[in-house]
């Protein structure tokens, strides 16, 4: 969790006194989603239904359910973390997931493409989609909110065109009209049927993203652009390039999530991923990343994502209505945001 330090170091505008002061609240906020995850887990253990003394919440199958269910939104949230640290937003992610799952399905089923060309093409498509959005936003100085809102519509529209307004079932086998059977592995579990493959993709992507954000020059640039754009520009950070790059990353992440979706559910539909952008933003915010940019952590996002999944799981295991689930999520988002705002005020960083 050295992200905040990196941010401060890369951000000349922050008074150096601020980083010396040890604020307990700031520590809580930095680790808020991990703390939240621990709290939810403890709550899960306490309130979990039991069978023959076994705590259902801790049942390996149940843990696998939780981490499988959040893997798609998790992959997206990881990309979203980069964007939000630069003080941007990407609303197109869920729609790009839908477009990617449709393209994946139709390339393999009606296009007759193999596994590798399909995956590469879809990932490149995601990167291109994000790059175009980032370029429009920086070139014409448009709010990313507007550009990616348009991107959302465009991606859904393209998905409807590609799919011909139909959903595409993926059947496996050799020959035309069938997908390579190995693709179905995305819906399976490895290591003695315990670890969902979708989760493995999520964790690997999270690990790479954490390294990129915390140890590379690009990662420091991302914090610098979000912390103080003008200062970053003066210090020689290629601000526009960084901004375009983060949207390329969300595009890539959405495409990856779309491939995982198609593989998990043997299916491509233009409606896939509806509303995922909001779940992903919620996970990022709960993870302690500030919507004002400049601060945030990847570990926080991962913990926030899993926390939302664990919360939904424990509420369902106890047969609590979906309405309560929404209210609980709402309360957590507000709490996370309020904590952040308090810290900003204490540090005198109120922007």
């Amino acid at each position: 969790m050295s992200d905040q330090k990196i941010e401060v170091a890369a951000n000349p505008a922050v008074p150096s006194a601020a980083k010396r002061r040890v604020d307990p609240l700031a520590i809580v906020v930095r680790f808020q989603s991990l703390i939240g995850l621990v709290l939810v887990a403890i709550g899960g253990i306490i309130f979990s239904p039991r069978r023959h003394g076994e705590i259902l919440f801790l049942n390996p199958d149940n843990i696998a359910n939780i981490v499988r269910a959040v893997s798609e939104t998790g992959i997206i949230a990881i990309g979203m973390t980069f964007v939000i640290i630069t003080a941007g937003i990407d609303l197109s992610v869920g729609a790009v997931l839908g477009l990617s799952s449709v393209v994946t399905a139709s390339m393999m089923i009606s296009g007759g493409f193999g596994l590798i060309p399909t995956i590469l093409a879809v990932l490149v498509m995601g990167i291109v989609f994000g790059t175009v959005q980032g370029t429009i936003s920086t070139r014409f100085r448009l709010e990313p909110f507007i550009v990616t809102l348009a991107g959302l519509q465009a991606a859904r529209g393209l998905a409807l065109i590609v799919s011909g307004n139909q959903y595409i079932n993926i059947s496996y086998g050799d020959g035309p009209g069938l997908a390579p059977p190995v693709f179905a592995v995305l819906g399976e579990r490895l290591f003695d049927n315990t670890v969902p493959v979708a989760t493995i993709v999520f964790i690997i992507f999270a690990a790479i993203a954490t390294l990129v954000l915390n140890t590379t020059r690009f990662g420091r640039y991302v914090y610098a652009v979000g912390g103080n754009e003008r200062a970053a520009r003066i210090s020689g950070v290629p601000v526009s390039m960084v901004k375009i790059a983060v949207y390329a990353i969300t595009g890539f992440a959405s495409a990856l999530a779309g491939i995982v979706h198609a593989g998990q559910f043997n299916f491509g539909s233009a409606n896939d991923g509806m509303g995922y952008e909001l779940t992903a933003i919620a996970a990022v915010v709960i993870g302690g990343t500030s919507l004002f940019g400049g601060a945030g952590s990847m570990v926080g996002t991962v913990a926030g994502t899993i926390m939302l999944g664990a919360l939904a799981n424990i509420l369902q295991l106890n047969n609590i209505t979906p309405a309560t689930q929404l209210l609980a999520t709402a309360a957590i988002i507000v709490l996370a945001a309020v904590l952040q705002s308090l810290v900003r005020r204490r540090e005198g960083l109120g922007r």
Partner: protein
Amino acid sequence: MRTTTGSRVLKAALLAGAGLCIAGSAYAANPLVKACSKDGQFVIGFSQANNAEPYRQHVNDELTAAAKQVPGFTLQIADGAGNVNTQTSQVDNFITQKVDILLISPFEAAPLTPAVKRAMDAGIPVIELDRKTVGEPGKDYTAFIGGDNFKIAEEAGKFTATKLLPDGGEAAVLEGLPSSTPAVERLNGFKEGVKGNAKIQIVAEQAADWVPDKAQTAFAAMLQAHPDIKVLYASNDMMAAGALLAAKGAGKDVKIIGTDGLPGPAGGIEAVAKGDWAATFTYPTGAKEAIDMSKKILLDCATSVDATVTVDTTAITPENAKALAGK
């Protein structure tokens, strides 16, 4: 010698065969759920596709009411919220909980198929309500209970042909979401039903995606183009409600037929009772049938159940609407 040996072999084969038969029948005689008992406590998990649709809320209400009648049953409903990922994880949660029976209305067929298989593999009988996953009922899942969209719409067509327009005239159809299975089946069913009366012409058919606002716009345009439309068949109640607004706006007296027969103040039964629509045809929820089947499996230790149960529609007309609306 040879004959004796032969007969011995034959006897042995017969014995083995008999043994197999006994083993086979003993296997078939196993109850679907081993823990079944008359006075047991059972949890039934229902994985609903999307609570946001009024019809699906109606299914939830009927299921809850039917389950309440059985003292040993606890019903848990999970809302898939129109998202196959959410619904899959909810089915997995039910498997973790080891519910005694899984009821499911899959949001989409193929994506939920693996989850249903996991439940079956875990020894949980799966009853599919209204929508199916991929595979055969009785084999890949325990049973399917639902209405027959084609037949329901065909009934509406016959009603039009014999009761509403016996002397012929112009009719129109509002279709659901194009390319969705129920939309196609209801459209074809209605057309089949009106074929009995050659004097009826279907002059317009438009998709309104199941929603009232699109139905209002589409039917207003239809009335502009074909002012003599006498009957409108709407593929669900919500579109019928939208069409009524269009007819009122145009000052036309069109006989409107809905589908689904939803209860409540905004539902089709009330609309027929008030005289706004000519009829609506219920799309049965199968809730009562699902709970009955659960009783057979869990309380009566059934060794097998009907793999497919088709629930018939009820025609709601001005004659019976008032009585049914009060219910």
